[in-house]
């Protein structure tokens, strides 16, 4: 019997309508590409597609669905840049799988848990990205714990707000 730390109500699996499933990741990608034109440091600290990946993965609570959501969003994010396609794809696949697996076992409905989960997955995402970019693509990367944690906290705070808005689109299965 699998060990879970969630109540029966909290393990409920949610689904989303097709427009939300397609529109929300597209909106996140659009904002991620557009906002840095007006706020140049936005891209250095925030990763909206990552927040959307974590949200969908945790809400659906299905590891396969989570990893595919992460892969698709990550690959789309790769396509907007000029680096080889797959770096964000791999990182977000891992995050999608991890977040959905965690969603099954943990209560991730309250703000505190969401903040911690987002900070943790931001660091996981950064570590995977760093490893792939440096190890496979030979890109010059500088790892900094301090900036990683700050960016993780920033994403966590933003994530709590974003999840609160996206909760409105949840549909009970």
């Amino acid at each position, binding site marked *: 019997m699998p060990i879970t730390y969630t109540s029966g109500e909290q393990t409920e699996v949610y689904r989303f309508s097709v427009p939300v499933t397609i529109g929300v990741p597209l909106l996140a990608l659009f904002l991620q590409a557009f906002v840095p034109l007006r706020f140049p440091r936005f891209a250095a600290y925030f990763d909206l597609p990552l927040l959307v990946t974590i949200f969908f993965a945790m809400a659906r609570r299905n590891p396969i669905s989570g990893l595919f959501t992460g*892969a698709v969003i990550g690959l789309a994010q790769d*396509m*907007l840049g000029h*680096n080889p*396609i797959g770096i964000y794809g791999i990182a977000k696949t891992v995050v999608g799988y991890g977040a959905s697996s965690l969603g099954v076992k943990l209560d991730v409905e309250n703000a505190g848990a969401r903040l911690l989960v987002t900070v943790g997955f931001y660091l996981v995402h950064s570590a995977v990205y760093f490893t792939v970019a440096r190890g*496979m693509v030979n890109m010059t990367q*500088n790892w900094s714990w301090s900036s990683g944690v700050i960016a993780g906290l920033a994403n966590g705070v933003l994530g709590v707000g974003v999840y609160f808005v996206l909760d409105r689109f949840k549909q009970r299965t």
Partner: protein
Amino acid sequence: MESILGRYRNLIILVGVLFLQVLGLAVQVKRSATDARDTRLIRIWAVGAITPFERGLVWIENGTGNIWHSYFYLRGVRAENRQLKQEIEQMRLEQVRLSQDAEQARRLQTLLAFKEQYISKTVAAQVIGSGGSDLSRVIYIDKGESSGVRRDMAVITSDGVVGKVLMVYPSVAQVLLINDQSSGVGVILEKSRLQGVLRGTANGEVVLERVMSDEQVPVGENVLTSGGDQIFPKGLPIGTIAKVGSGKDLFLNIRIKPAANLSKLEEVLVLVEKQDRQAMAEDSVRVRAADILAQRLPSVPEKPATANESAPETKAPAAHAGDEEDVTSTDPTTPAKTAPRKPAAAAAGASAQTAPGQSVPGQIKRVTEPPKPKTSQPQANPPADQGGPH
């Protein structure tokens, strides 16, 4: 066996998806580290899905901005207009001086049969999006193949170089900024004429590489394109030297402050056409600083034309006052060109009383050729100060 597959189904799928992506990545890396042409077809989906929204939002933003600036934000425009007019006056005077230098340079280049690249056509474009990542410093512009934009074209602003076109789609193009770590620009320092390669770093700084540590590189010196990369024409401003330190392997570590604000780009110019042509020296000088001043200063109203004005005696003072350096009007006997300038030119310091060979403070000196006397016309008394070069 089936139970193992069922038990680890999620993990197996995860490994499979990761493996496929790693494989795809490896293929791309092997083909080319920087050339993204192979993945153009895939990238076009994401670009096609995102850029219409970006274009729309920029359009709305510009529309509201224009309404604000055209109707509501007109306070102080008159004062600003006056100030700008004064600046234009100053710049026109400066332009005359610079055109003299340029003409001299052109003459020297002609002598040496130099070939130079000229910008012959540019396309203005609006910045509509970015790469969305700090590790991929690219922007999207709203002009693509349909506007004549091609890969590897230079992108600039009035301040300086921005980057080069990396990917071209039908109606948008991706521009690699000079502060991306995969970019490289051949540059030259304005005064010391040291050459190097400009590169971006992982954290978005711009550094100058390949300058030996025994070279003297002053902070604040301007950095220009050298033209060696065959993308950017020679002489475009890139930035200034912000910091010089010792680097590794006998090279200096030089940081550059880009002239263009790379983090807040709104409009850019794409150099769609360059021309390789040999420098041609111009035969005549068009405008002089004294002439511009003369046009601005009050002058004595012209007298009604009389028959005497066409006589050689009345021409002489006018040509005289037009000062000794005027070779634009190659025919010194034409009164219409020189006579109206007479009083103002005199007031501007182009002295009619100056002896030949004597320099006048504030005047621009230039090397001129003596006007050729017309054989069909009597040149009995040419003005003494027009007789030869000064």
